[in-house]
């Protein structure tokens, strides 16, 4: 017996060791994870803020003051030191997120998460994310100044990573059992590409091609008009475009008879509500005579937050605002002279081309009546605990053939190639570096000039009293109709012919009306000479904002705060009165009538303590679905008409054949749909009430801010009391909304207010991890501490000196 005992205990010991040292599924390696000397207990830490840190490559000392919100105020002697410190501090507070986002951008999640992320990774590679980032990096490298700063940022991040021991890794690394890798300059390019995908990566050309085939041109145009019947564009309708004097490309004869699309599933699209608000009023419309500017980008609500607030100062410039971990400088903010902010300027900058290959080898494709050579790009996708996958992606002069026989398609001799402004590359980092240093309107314009993607509405205000808004990006100058549908990859006339010259991008400086604004609506009206069509423009927030500024003469900070937190539901107000007049209520039960009366007495403000917004949300969701049941029933990839046009159809074409419900034998009209969906709504809400209590809007919507790892409940915040929905100015929906609210008055120095749904620390164990969330939900702002003198440490809780390594 005793001869067995030793091998037996040896095996047992090894089992215990490997059992506690390895990750099983989503269970972290328990020995490693729980041991107090290297596991998560080591992350149970407040911030270490006071010590002096040595950083490789600094030329001078850098002083970092932290205020009570853990916002670092960085004072460096030169730009290189400044951006090195920015890299260092971003890593110090947000390392895991900083790295994880670039893994997500470049399609490398399977390295961390294993096979479950493989489809995602392949899709990102096929979208050309790495290809685009490489092209962007090339452009950045052409500019030695930008290059030296992104290298300094890289070195700053790496100085932080290099001094870490495994016990110091952020808790997510321990949970997933991996380690940070060195930061590289490609990652800055990838992060910018990630933003480009998020903001300029939404399109539905293939779906629209299918819809055109399904409905025919006339019906299609009714459902998807180029312009809605209301339009209050970013650049006002009064703009005189006569200064634009270029020849417009000619629409080729429609010789194409493209079949509908053979694939049934397309690439995942970015969130449809990714958008934003910004506006500025001139001194004339401001209570104090100083222009006031505001910006609130609407993005997914995540922890750690996408934004990290900093003050970045050298003797030459001093700026404050929201940074993006991975990118340099302030993205939405202000300095002593100017302020700036962005909203997304949606435009159709992605087109799809049908590619015909000569044969199965796919070495040649047809273009301009010749066989032209394709190139191949082999994407290496590492998978945790599995063999690496090599995905060969064919490239044509248009771009990557994303869909082919090996990805969502089945024809070895055909594919669909993607052309995207995001692939062209551009030194978009430089724009932000220049804005940080900008002193006036000309500097702002100079900063914007070479900015390519994602196209943004850049709002601007200066202490000199100028306000402006440029819709800036690189836009292909298309012939009318180009790229709305699948294009013919063999026809050179279908290629992008040229780009809109930058000076002809729509813009507005010091307009007569005294304000500029944008909220992802149509950039222009049809009088703009270049081809622009409705590509999913928002139609509600912008009208509330513009009406607000037209309604009175002077605006103060409180007006700005009220507007950013405004929950007026214009969408509901444009449909409900029509429903109340037209819906047959004779068959409603007493309970249903009660619910109807509740929503009938609604003032259309989606406030948290109201029942009506929940009724509306439930009702609208069902109504939208049932109107377009024809789309769901079709196996082809299709996109449903936009909200505005849906309401237009319900009100103006109540007898349209699409109002019919396919699954019933009766012939429904929109009035029938109102009643059917109302009864379903009443039923749903009654059941909801029985289970959860009153369905007031706050409880029913249940807004949450989710951790980047699939909203791990332990690291997320749920049931936040915030009103509004995705079409109100305060665009807070369930897991999406104002990700940074900023207001700046251009006093000397400027006075800023800001808040975001998160906290400065990326460590779930820090009290600074989510400490802004409650104030954000309430609509409170922080008075931003814009330090003018690094010696004036009045509201500073800790200071740290970064010194050159000896």
């Amino acid at each position, binding site marked *: 017996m005793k001869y067995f005992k*030793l091998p037996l205990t040896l095996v047992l010991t090894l089992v*215990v060791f490997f059992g*506690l040292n390895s990750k099983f599924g989503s269970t972290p390696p328990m*020995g490693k994870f729980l041991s107090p*000397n290297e596991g998560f*207990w080591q992350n*149970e830490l*407040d911030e270490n803020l006071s010590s002096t840190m040595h950083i490789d490559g600094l030329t001078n000392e850098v002083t970092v003051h932290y205020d009570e919100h853990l916002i670092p105020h960085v004072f460096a002697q030169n730009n290189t030191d400044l951006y090195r410190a920015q890299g260092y501090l971003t890593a110090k507070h947000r390392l895991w997120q900083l790295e994880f986002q670039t893994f997500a951008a470049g399609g490398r999640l399977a390295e961390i998460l294993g096979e479950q992320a493989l489809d995602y990774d392949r899709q990102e590679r096929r979208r050309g994310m790495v290809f685009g980032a490489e092209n962007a990096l090339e452009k950045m490298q052409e500019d030695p100044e930008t290059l030296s700063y992104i290298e300094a940022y890289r070195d700053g991040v790496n100085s932080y990573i290099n001094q870490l021991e495994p016990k110091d890794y952020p808790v997510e690394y321990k949970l997933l059992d991996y380690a940070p890798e060195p930061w590289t300059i490609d990652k800055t390019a990838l992060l910018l590409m990630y933003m480009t995908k998020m903001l300029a990566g939404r399109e539905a050309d293939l779906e629209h091609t299918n819809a055109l085939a399904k409905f025919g041109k006339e019906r299609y145009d009714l459902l998807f008009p180029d312009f809605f019947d209301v339009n209050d564009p970013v650049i006002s309708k009064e703009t005189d475009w006569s200064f634009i004097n270029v020849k417009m490309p000619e629409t080729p004869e429609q010789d194409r008879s493209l079949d509908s699309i053979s694939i049934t599933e397309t690439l995942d699209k970015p969130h449809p509500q990714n958008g934003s608000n910004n506006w500025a009023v001139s001194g004339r419309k401001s209570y104090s005579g100083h222009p006031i500017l505001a910006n609130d980008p609407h993005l997914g609500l995540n922890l750690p937050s996408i934004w990290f607030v900093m003050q970045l100062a050298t003797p030459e410039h001093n700026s404050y605002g929201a940074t993006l971990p991975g990118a340099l400088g302030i993205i939405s903010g202000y300095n002593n002279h100017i302020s700036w902010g962005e909203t997304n300027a949606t435009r159709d900058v992605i087109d799809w081309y049908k590619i015909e290959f000569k044969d199965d080898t796919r070495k040649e494709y047809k273009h301009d009546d010749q066989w032209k050579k394709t190139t191949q790009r082999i994407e290496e996708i590492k998978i945790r605990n599995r063999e690496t996958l090599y995905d060969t992606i064919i490239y044509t002069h248009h771009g990557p053939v994303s869909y082919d026989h090996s990805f969502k398609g089945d024809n070895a001799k055909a594919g669909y190639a993607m052309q995207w402004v995001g692939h062209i590359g551009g030194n978009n980092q430089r724009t932000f570096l220049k804005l940080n240093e900008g002193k006036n309107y000309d500097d702002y314009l100079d900063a914007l000039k070479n900015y390519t993607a994602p196209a943004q509405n850049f709002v601007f205000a200066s202490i000199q009293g100028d306000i402006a808004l440029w819709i800036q990006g690189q836009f292909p100058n298309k012939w009318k109709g180009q790229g709305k549908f699948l294009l013919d990859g063999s026809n050179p006339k279908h290629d992008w012919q040229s780009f809109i010259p930058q000076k002809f991008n729509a813009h507005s400086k010091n307009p007569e009306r005294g304000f500029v604004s944008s909220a992802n609506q149509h950039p222009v009206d049809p009088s703009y000479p270049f081809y622009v069509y409705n590509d999913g423009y928002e139609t509600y927030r912008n009208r509330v904002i513009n009406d607000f500024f037209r309604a009175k003469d002077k605006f103060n900070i409180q007006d700005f705060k009220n507007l950013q937190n405004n929950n007026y539901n214009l969408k509901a107000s444009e449909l409900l009165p029509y429903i109340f007049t037209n819906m047959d209520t004779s068959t409603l039960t007493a309970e249903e009538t009660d619910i109807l009366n509740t929503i009938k007495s609604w003032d259309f403000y989606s406030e948290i303590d109201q029942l009506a917004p929940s009724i509306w949300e439930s009702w609208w969701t069902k109504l939208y679905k049932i109107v377009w049941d024809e789309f769901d029933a079709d196996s082809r990839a299709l996109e449903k008409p936009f909200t505005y046009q849906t309401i237009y159809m319900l009100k103006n074409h109540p007898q349209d054949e699409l109002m019919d419900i396919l699954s019933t034998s009766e012939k429904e009209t929109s009035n029938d749909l109102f009643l059917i969906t109302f009864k379903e709504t009443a039923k749903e809400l009654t059941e909801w009430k029985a289970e959860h209590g009153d369905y007031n809007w706050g409880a029913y919507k249940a807004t949450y801010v989710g951790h980047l790892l699939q909203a791990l409940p332990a690291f997320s915040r749920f049931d936040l009391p915030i009103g509004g929905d995705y079409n109100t100015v305060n665009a807070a929906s369930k897991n999406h909304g104002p990700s940074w609210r900023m207001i700046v008055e251009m006093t000397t120095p400027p006075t800023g207010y800001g808040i975001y749904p998160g906290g400065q620390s990326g460590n779930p164990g820090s009290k600074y991890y989510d400490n802004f969330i409650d104030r954000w939900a309430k609509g409170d702002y922080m008075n931003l501490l814009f330090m003018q003198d690094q010696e004036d440490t009045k509201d500073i809780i800790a200071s740290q000196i970064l010194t050159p390594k000896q």
Partner: protein
Amino acid sequence: MKKNLINFIVTLIIAIILSQYLPWWHVMVAGFVSALFFSLDRAAVFFIPFLAVFLFWTVYALWLSNANDFILAEKIAVLLPLGGNWAVLLLVTGCIGGIAAGVSAILGKQCRMLVKR
């Protein structure tokens, strides 16, 4: 009894010292080494190092977490899931370390018997 106490103290001291240099499995080394030199009998072989490491890990973890109001411990106790109770998480932590130490102590004891013969 005295043997038990000596083993307990030795395991504890070795574990504390090694925790400065080795990853989590310092407790396995501690259990193994103390069993080699301060051998115990029957169940005590497992339980004495178990208790020593249980005490070490729970006190160490408690000390770390208490200084930060158990913010992270409460979240990890949701994640694992232990009902959000940091005290349960402390016990689990102690038990995991204890089991690792106890099992390797049994191995240590077996090795000692091999050498002794």
